[in-house]
């Protein structure tokens, strides 16, 4: 369970998140909103990459960012950048992160296969298209099979086939107790497999449909 209490993030005078209160149960959470609605900021706070200006965020009872290496080992994050090194091949990048996370190298090939990156495994990341870079970033986030997966616009620059490979990777990662928060401004791609949905507007939560609310809605 992720608990977000009275979370605000300011960048100078700009309010990125404004008194956000949320409880996110395990499952796949769709985080929707237009550009500059605060989705990326919320994901960075959840990943421990950005300290809140005020408020508190806990995951399984522990404050995000303060639990150190053990907590970081259980979080996977793919932001706007791929988080990879341009002068290393996809496989070299993933092997580097496999070493940092203590993951067997065989997992690198598995995750590349799931995301359709196998044929490009020896290509330098700097030579990839934006869509392939995005998929490689998702592969890095999924590499260590995290318990909390944070994906920021994972479908950007992807065609239908590539989008489906990302959705498939997320669905096959899914397991009881795991939580994914997937931010996107287009709900179409993930609507069919989200367990709950949050809509942000100008840093505030305007809609939060829990799993129960969504299933009740589906029965109507």
């Amino acid at each position, binding site marked *: 369970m992720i608990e977000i209490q009275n979370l605000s993030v300011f960048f100078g005078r700009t309010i990125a998140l404004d008194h956000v209160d949320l409880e996110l149960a395990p499952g796949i959470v769709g985080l929707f909103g237009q550009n500059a609605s605060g989705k990326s900021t919320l994901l960075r706070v959840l*990943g*421990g*990459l950005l300290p809140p200006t005020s408020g508190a965020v806990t995951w399984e009872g522990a404050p995000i960012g303060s639990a150190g*290496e*053990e907590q*970081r*080992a*259980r*979080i996977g*994050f793919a*932001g*706007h*950048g*791929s*988080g*990879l*090194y*341009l*002068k*290393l091949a996809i496989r*070299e990048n993933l092997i*580097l*992160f496999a*070493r*940092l*996370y*203590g*993951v*067997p190298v065989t*997992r690198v090939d598995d995750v590349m296969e799931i995301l359709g990156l196998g044929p490009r495994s020896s290509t330098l*990341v700097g030579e990839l298209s934006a869509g392939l*870079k995005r998929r490689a970033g998702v592969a*890095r986030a999924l*590499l*260590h*099979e995290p318990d909390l997966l944070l994906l920021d616009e994972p479908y950007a620059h992807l065609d239908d086939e590539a989008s489906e490979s990302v959705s498939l990777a997320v669905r096959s990662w899914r397991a009881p107790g795991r939580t994914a928060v997937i931010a996107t401004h287009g709900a179409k791609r993930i609507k069919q497999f989200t367990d709950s949905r949050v809509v942000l507007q100008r840093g505030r939560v305007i809609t939060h449909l829990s799993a129960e609310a969504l299933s009740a809605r589906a029965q109507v």
Partner: protein
Amino acid sequence: MRAGGPGFVGKTWALVVKDVKLELRARDTLPPMVAFAGAVAVLLAFSIPSSGNLSAPVRIVAGSAPLTDVLAGFLWVTVLFAGLIGFARTFEVEREEAAIDSLLMAPLDRSGLFFGKAIPNLLFIVLVEAILIPLFAILFGIDLGGSWAVLASVALLADLGFVAVGTLFSALAAQTSSRELILPILALPVLVPVFIAAVVLTSDLFAGSSLDEVARRGWFAILVAFDVIFITAGALLFEFTVE
């Protein structure tokens, strides 16, 4: 999927190998450092008249100084600025594609990130010196006899402190838009003691002092103390500069 995997040293070493591999492919840090150092050495060779006698006085603004002092000073000023050129690029590869986020989220102590950056920086500066010092010796007729190993030790001690400070402050400077300007402003005041010590000891060696004589100088102890303090500080404070 969390197997035991490599420990602190193994993970840090993976980062070192990564930076060396990136430099071998991109060649955007070491070549500018070497080019700067080489250019300065050659320019100096044309501006400092060498009589072949290193103890001969050289006229300077404030009077005169032995040529050994002048050459030692120029040697270390060249190393200092070549190093700053390299250190300013320490986090460039992490800025592209937001790889710094991936590193910060990895389960590795921040001191591992510090050593993962400091060790490649040390390697680069040692390589620059491996070219620069023989070049100085050829251009200015420096014959250290059996003291080359002592000079290498002094250089390594100076490099350790230099790299510790440079890596620590490069993490701070990397978060600003004018990092090439910020890094010298932050690092130079802190680096003054280490470079004074390096210049004094190198000048002694150029003048023919032995290992025992150099080791007895207070500057040698200062160099060692500086290294211990700033390597420890770098490892402990890196967390606060990189986040």
